[in-house]
């Protein structure tokens, strides 16, 4: 049962809530154990997933609120299983990178695991109402984690994040109700709604206005320009593990929702809106990269890089071909891993030691903490699309896909990749390179890198490397969902 991932996380949270607060070590180990167990369940199910059979597997369906047709319906396919895996990986590494938290350890890990449980839930729920519920479960702990353990305008960042998310949710809510009433079937079940959608229950004019509500509503959380400004502020304000979660999985909730509820149920709506969406995606890629280039705060560089990279996801989603869509899912996975790693370097490996993130004040850190420099170097180049890492495969797929769908946008997105290298190199040189006496003196007393940090970094780099060298490990799974989806699309629209 893959749904165990959800319940294990919630149970872990409950267990920690009952533990004595002063026993910090036991709490940390409990949290790590819980997250690892959930990851293990996810990995086991990755191997158990029957790719030739495809479709939703490891399902579970029980009535919940029969009056409105909401059910406890779970299941995963090739779109969601990679993201479930990603959640597990980010949860484990996030806890490892939070090993040093000393302030309210118990509350931190309780909220952390609740959040993780909520994210697992969103990726597995097959009922819009249930998705909505888990989505909100994920957002509330987010607020407290940022507002309590954060830095740099943390209350502002937390509030901005929550307000933006809630605006998005309300748009989704309206769209969801509209689908509920228009379908007339009194159900929120995605599988049933999908069948109805294929049967043509949602007329084109309806999709024309309902699709943007759902897509933009979820897209806000996925960093859709111009509704993205919560992301950099939120990332910067959040503590390391929370930035990792935020960039690593929470932003994916947005793009995943846009796919699962928006594109999956209303493909005609996407067909009508694909040019504006693609335009916004490409603007996001270039615009995010440009802004990242002039940031003075190290974490803001990575924050804006997320906006830029999520633009690739959005671009891939709307290509309406297998390779582009497959690339979008892979980019979600890859960006989850790599942005998590980048935030970990900036927030945990650097900021927690130097207590400054201003690039002007950093410099010459390579000598003091070479491990951090090497990890940032690898993660930065990998996220910019260095062959051998997952980012290259994903960007390659997205660019091939968008080359077919919108060649001009593909060209602009290609230049976005050059700009990624430019800002990554700029930040890297400013923070790590340089060897003045002054720097050496300043960083003499930096604490050494600890074992949880090393384990987590190597784990994340390893994941990206494996997918980068042997992409089949992910693409076969993703394609098992993408191929039938795109085929249906063409049968329906009579291409």
């Amino acid at each position, binding site marked *: 049962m893959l749904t165990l991932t959800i319940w294990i996380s919630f149970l872990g949270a409950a267990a920690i809530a009952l533990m004595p607060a002063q026993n910090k070590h036991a709490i940390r180990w409990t949290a790590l154990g819980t997250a690892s167990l959930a990851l293990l369940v996810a990995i086991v199910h990755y191997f158990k997933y029957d790719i030739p059979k495809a479709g939703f597997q490891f399902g579970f369906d029980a009535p919940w609120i029969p009056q409105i047709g909401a059910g406890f319906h779970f299941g995963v396919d090739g779109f969601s299983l990679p993201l479930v895996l990603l959640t597990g990986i980010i949860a484990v590494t996030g806890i490892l990178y939070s090993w040093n938290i000393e302030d309210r350890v118990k509350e931190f890990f309780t909220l952390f695991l609740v959040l993780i449980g909520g994210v697992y839930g969103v990726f597995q729920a097959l009922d819009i109402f249930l998705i909505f519920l888990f989505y909100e479960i994920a957002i509330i702990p987010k607020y407290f984690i940022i507002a309590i353990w954060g830095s740099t305008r943390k209350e502002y960042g937390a509030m901005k994040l929550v307000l933006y998310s809630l605006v998005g949710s309300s748009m989704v809510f309206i769209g969801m109700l509209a689908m509920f009433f228009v379908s007339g079937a009194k159900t929120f079940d995605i599988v049933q709604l999908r069948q109805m959608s294929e049967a043509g229950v949602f007329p084109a004019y309806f999709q024309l206005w309902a699709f943007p509500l759902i897509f933009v509503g979820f897209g806000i959380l996925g960093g859709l320009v111009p509704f993205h400004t919560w992301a950099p502020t939120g990332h910067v304000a959040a503590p390391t593990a929370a930035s990792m979660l935020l960039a690593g999985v929470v932003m994916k909730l947005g793009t995943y929702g846009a796919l699962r509820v928006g594109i999956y149920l209303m493909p005609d709506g996407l067909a009508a809106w694909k040019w504006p969406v693609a335009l916004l995606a490409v603007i996001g890629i270039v*615009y995010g990269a440009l802004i990242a280039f002039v940031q003075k705060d190290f974490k803001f560089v990575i924050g804006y890089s997320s906006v830029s990279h999520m633009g690739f996801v959005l671009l891939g989603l709307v290509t309406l071909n297998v390779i582009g869509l497959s690339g979008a899912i892979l980019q979600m996975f890859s960006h989850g891993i790599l942005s998590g790693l980048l935030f970990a370097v900036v927030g945990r490996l650097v900021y927690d030691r130097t207590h400054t993130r201003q690039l002007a004040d950093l410099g010459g850190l390579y000598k003091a903490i070479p491990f951090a420099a090497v990890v940032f170097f690898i993660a930065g180049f990998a996220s910019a699309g260095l062959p051998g890492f997952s980012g290259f495969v994903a960007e390659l797929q997205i660019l091939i896909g968008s080359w077919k769908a919108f060649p001009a946008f593909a060209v602009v997105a*290609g230049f976005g990749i050059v700009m990624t290298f430019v800002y990554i190199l700029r930040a890297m040189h400013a923070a790590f390179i*340089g060897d003045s006496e002054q720097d050496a003196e300043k960083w003499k007393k930096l604490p050494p890198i600890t074992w949880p940090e090393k384990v987590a970094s190597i784990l994340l780099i390893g994941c990206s490397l494996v997918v980068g060298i042997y992409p089949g490990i992910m693409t076969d799974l993703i394609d098992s969902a993408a191929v039938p989806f795109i085929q249906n699309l063409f049968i329906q629209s009579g291409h």
Partner: protein
Amino acid sequence: MEQELGIVKWIWLIPLLPFLAAGLTALMRKEQRQPAQALVIGAMSISFLLSCCMLAKVLTHSHGEETFRKVVNFVWFTSGAATHLELGFVLDSLSALMLIVVSLVGLVIFIFSIGYMDEDENAARFFTFLSLFAGSMLGLVIANSLLLLFMFWELVGLSSYILIGFWYFKPSAAAAAKKAFIVTRVGDIGFFFGLLMLFYATGTSILFNQVASGAIQTAGLHRIEAVGILHESFFGLQLAIPFAVLLALMIFCGAAGKSGQFPLHVWLPDAMEGPTPVSALIHAATMVAAGVFLVARMYPVFELHGGDALKVVAIIGAFTALMAAVIGCAQFDIKRILAYSTVSQLGYMMMALGVGGYVAGMFHLFTHAFFKALLFLGAGSIIHACHHEQDIRNMGGLLKKMPVTAWSYLIGTGALCGIFPLAGFWSKDDILLDAFYSANVPYNIPFFFGTAAAILTAFYMTRQCIYVFFGEMRGSHLHPHESRAVMTIPLCLLAGASVLVGVLYGWPSIGGAKIHHFLAPERSAPPFQWRFAAVMMLPALVGILAGYLVYWRSRSRLKGLEPMEKLLGASGFAPIYRAIQNKFYFDEIYDATVVAFNGWLARAADIVDRIVIDGLIWILGVAVRALSILSQWMDDSGINRGFDEACEGIRDASASNRAIIQTGALQRYLKFLAAGVAVLFLILVLL
């Protein structure tokens, strides 16, 4: 069709071994220098031996007009039923030639590095990166897929970045590394688009396969041509460009970036900030030639549509060859002179390919790899002996102090200038011969540019040699001595190669047509002519003579201005000299345009994000608050007040009436209560 692979089955081991060595040495500690060096050099030796086997395979199996080609292809991953991204390796004469160049020159330079890096505490890391580079470069030359080629291409760029910035604590080295990476990256994006276009047009990422349906085999080329002419209107401007030509030019963008062709040549001279073995291996012999190799590999695409794309290649190449040679005449850093010389020679190779001299271009790549590696290692030996002094004005008289280095350097110089019978003579003659007979570019521009560049090459090399080896030592603080055997033996090996490879493959009665036959039996080329070759010695001799006349007199004492500056200044050309010395201000122009524009755009976007978008949100927030204040006011003043006032009015109006009931006397209330209960009781009973 089943192909007999034999040893070709193992071709992937050639790049894999250096990669493994790199991975293993990366895990070693700094102090384990010897095992690291042994491992890296051992892996490279095996790769070299395997490369020799591959060459032998090609040599023994090619007969007649038939081209030898064996491929090992595999599917990397699939996306849907339609899209198979295939990768693979190919062994043919081109990749065999490149394998030998890379593994042989690489091996020699690795050995040299043991001596050169002996004082560096991070030498073990240096070998890790060298090995990473070697693996990527060997993979690049045998890639049978433009996609795989691109992947190795990027890894090569990465290792170049790391190695240029190996002494990262020098700000100039760090900046040069960054610049090299970004400038080549600009070219690479064109390459990447070319890759997408090729994939889009042919539906395969494989270049060659057994059934001749690869992207650059007959079927694929037909599909590329079938796309036809692209019509684009660009801001009202009607553009029409054949798809095939655009595709070729996109690929050429990448080649121009990597091979330092105008206008992307600016990074290569700066790359000399890296340790000298790196300059020799990467920025002279192998990586920078990858661009030339790429054009050669994709030659069938360049030839489509009447070879229009080749015209561009020829013109860019010829221009680069001349421009860089001019700049090289006014530099003082021993390595920078060689760097501009490299840019110039790469231009030569491009020009050769552009005028249809496929074999000549690759032949020059081959010979150049040996004599330019020799020159760089010679420069390295000199720099090592002079305690990292690189200014040729502070050297002098080294012929006596470092005889082995000096003599091998002079052989390299002769080869570069094209002195009979050294290597450069044969390949350069081949290029100029092709350029002379080619009608690809009007007015024979490549030929004249090439000849002028040959004169200048001889001139600046003579100037450099006089400065470095003759006269008296000018830097008083330097006490140079001959380098160790681990450094001089590689020099001798390369000097030997610089003498021999030309004769073996160029001399008509010995090698002659052999290189043509080996590389491209199906292509016809103008045959070697002794008369033409003799005439083509003249530019070199003129250059040497000019250099001798200008510089020989001032070999011992160098006071005041540079002789050439004096000369040009006297005839009123001082600004021109300054422009040459400042590399025609390319860096300044780029700083003022591209770099400034990017910075401006980025700041503008930042302001938009902070002020416009967040500002709009802020306005929205203020508007919502204003609305809520308004509602509160409406509530208070409209609804609430009206209600309150109405209530008040009622109270006032009915105050007298209510006063009767609301007396505050408890007994009265109890009476009413009792009455009420009685009434209720009555109702209950009655009903």
